């Protein structure tokens, strides 16, 4: 057949390339299905919605990945040059093009809406009532956690009062500041109760990253940004900085404890207040 409708030659290069694409498909299926390495164990309420959204996108893009890489492998294996035989001469198929365009657009639109439901449930929901409120201030290269204490009110802060021992410039003469707790590098929250985090930065942009809680929010100087989450698993976790903030970026971390009960949390707060 000179018009290329017959099969091409199976060439060594084509088969090797197809084989490599097959290895790629198998390796990625293994990595994403057997999950030898995966997300850090989930410990927040909204995190489940993010993980399942990730799973949905994974299934859709995974199918596309296998189909496209697989087709590419199949074609290169099959359609090697064969002497003087000609390739097929066709270069348009408006119907197929329209179907592919519409199918892609529909799938992506569905993903947009699924994604936005999750996004809206995190960002457009009302602020949780009865929450633990923490003011968190990032600076090169550590996190300051400011708790209002038993009275539930934050003491006044002033940048003029900042010293090497008073990182956030808390005015200790302010009566409501008496029971405030400022903890450097150590964060505690009670389990099962919403936590509202007010993020600030003293110097450059940092990013407050709680890998287990599927929470990440930049702390931007000049801005106060509030995010919230509800811890669902007690234990020890890590807080990281996810935005390059200077030479010590890699060590800008903190320890996060989710206490097993409100009482345990209050006990820690009391102890920390006594140490101030």
């Amino acid at each position, binding site marked *: 057949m000179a018009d290329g409708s017959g099969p*091409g030659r199976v060439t060594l290069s084509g088969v090797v390339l197809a084989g490599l694409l097959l290895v790629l498909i198998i390796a990625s299926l293994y990595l994403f299905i057997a999950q030898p390495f995966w997300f850090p164990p989930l410990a927040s309420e909204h995190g489940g919605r993010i993980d399942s959204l990730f799973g949905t996108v994974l299934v859709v893009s995974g199918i596309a990945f296998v189909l496209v890489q697989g087709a590419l492998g199949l074609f290169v294996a099959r*359609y090697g040059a064969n002497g003087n035989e000609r*390739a097929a001469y066709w270069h348009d198929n408006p119907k197929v093009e329209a179907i592919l365009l519409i199918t892609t657009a529909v799938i992506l639109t569905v993903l947009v809406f699924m994604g936005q439901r999750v996004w809206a449930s995190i960002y457009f929901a009302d602020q949780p009532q009865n929450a633990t409120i923490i003011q968190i201030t990032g600076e090169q290269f550590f996190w300051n956690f400011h708790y209002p204490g038993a009275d539930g009110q934050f003491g006044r802060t002033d940048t003029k009062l900042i010293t090497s021992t008073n990182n956030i410039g808390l005015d200790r003469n302010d009566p409501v500041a008496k029971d405030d707790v400022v903890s450097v590098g150590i964060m505690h929250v009670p389990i099962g109760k919403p936590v509202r985090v007010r993020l600030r930065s003293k110097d450059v942009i940092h990013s407050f*990253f709680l890998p*287990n809680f*599927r929470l990440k929010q930049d702390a931007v100087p000049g801005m106060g940004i509030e995010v919230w989450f509800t811890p669902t698993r007690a234990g020890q976790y890590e807080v990281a900085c996810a935005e390059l903030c200077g030479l010590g970026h890699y060590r800008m971390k903190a320890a996060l404890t989710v206490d097993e009960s409100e009482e345990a949390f209050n006990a820690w707060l009391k102890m920390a207040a006594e140490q101030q």
Partner: protein
Amino acid sequence: MSESHTGEHVHHELGFWRKYVFSTDHKIIGIQYLITAMSMAVVGGTLSMLMRYQLAWPSMISPTLGKLMPDAFAGGVMKPEFYVSLVTMHGTIMVFFLFTAVLTGGFGNFLIPLQIGARDMAFPFLNALSYWVFLLSCIVIFSALFVTTGAPLGGWTSYAPLSAIPAAGPGQGTGVTLWITAIALFTASGLMGGLNYITTILTMRTRGMSMMRLPLTQWSLLITAILALLAFPVLLAAGILLMFDRMGGTSFFVPAGIIMNQMPIEHSGGHPLLWQHLFWFFGHPEVYIVVLPAMGMASDILSTFCRKPIFSYRMMVYSMIAIAVLSFVVWGHHMFVSGMNPFLGSVFTLTTLLIAVPSAIKTFNWLGTVWGARIRFTAAGLFAIGFVSMFVSGGLSGIFLGTSAADIQLQDTYFVVAHFHLVMAIAPLFAAFGGLYFWFPKMFGRFMNETLGRIHFWLTFIGVYCVFFPMHIIGIGGQMRRIYDPTQYMFLVPQQPVNVFISIAAFILGAGQLIFLFNFLFSIFAGKRVLERNPWHATTLEWTAPTPPGHGNFGEELPVVYRWPFDYSVPGEKEDFIPQTVPATVVAKQ
């Protein structure tokens, strides 16, 4: 290239310096861009090897490195500030000084007049000026590596206020000043080039070369030049504002109340997010300034070695235009967790997934091109096929990151690093390699060695997947970008063996590129001579010009175009290709 000037009828002879150094010939300028950018790639690649060394063995003491680079490896251990400088310089060099320069500056200059049937660019002097300003910018950014206080360390994105306040880090003084200067020079050079490309393609096409007969490379370069003309000024302006903040006492990007090392900083009224908006308003089109020429070149090369017309030429053109337009309204997807209003997150998710549609169309069309082909597995053809695979692998992970809610966890992790490397570094790298193997004979009159070229392809194909695919996994595991030592975090320690694997693969991949460098340099002087004008049996105009083309490209008569550039395997024809210059009536249908 040392042969006499017998092929030149149009212009008088020039001395060595005017001909090969201070040349206004687009081909020489293209090759100058190419070689300068490749030198920058050697620098940028070496930096990445040092990064991978540090990431795999973060606390290893190496007396050798301590002796070689005492400032960077105090006591044999890499300093953290050196690591973040590596990150910054690697990203900056690769994005601007390799990819942007090699694809538009190198291939753009060489190919535009040759493929549209013109004798040179519209503004040859401006073209030469663009190269010399580019070279100057390369020297400036290279010199930033040798500043005694350190190279800049704020990443290639140079977010303010880290970049705006010299006290924010060791490299943030002179280092960042040099960074801004280099970027300003680079954008100025890019603007000169862009203006030239647009004018040339629009006004200097030869007779018969209608827009819909342009090779896809030319379409991609035209659209890219328009993008550059619209995007570069924004970066240039942002850079100038940043310079004012640093030196002129203004506060565009720095708010009031910043305390650095217990010292208040005298600024008020600026906003750090302004920098991000300006940077990414440039930065996302920049991604396509790199990817579009790669798409165009890969399409043409793919078609040539598939011996088959590109599938759906029209849709290829329209989808590139769609990508270009949409690329200006997706920048916010870099900022989902930046503190930007979350309502904007919804808008940018929509536009981002919208831009995936034309990208998917292009992928289907490449597959449609390979289907039913008769593939010649040359090094150039293999790299063009490899481009498709890389673009798909890198593109699909973009859906995760473009979905704002999924991005919360993935932003600033290695998942992002995997994504953008595959889609905007490796895929364009494959297109550029393909382009080099393909057009080298036209550039230098000699072939690159095919066997070495294929070995280079196999090593690179396997290497990049071993390096970048596992990065998705450690990114899902939470490993942050730009951290000097992942083992500082307990939750990252279990996946450290993956980092070791990636680093070993990266060293092999890096060594594999030496084969290419050797092949390239060796072949310029001692490669097999090209004895015909059209060794690949391709259809586009550059293959009708002498090899290598003399000054003025086409001899006395400019070629006339009668057909589109994809007439491969036309049924009933004697040859399996028909050059664009063959009149439709001359070829008798049998």
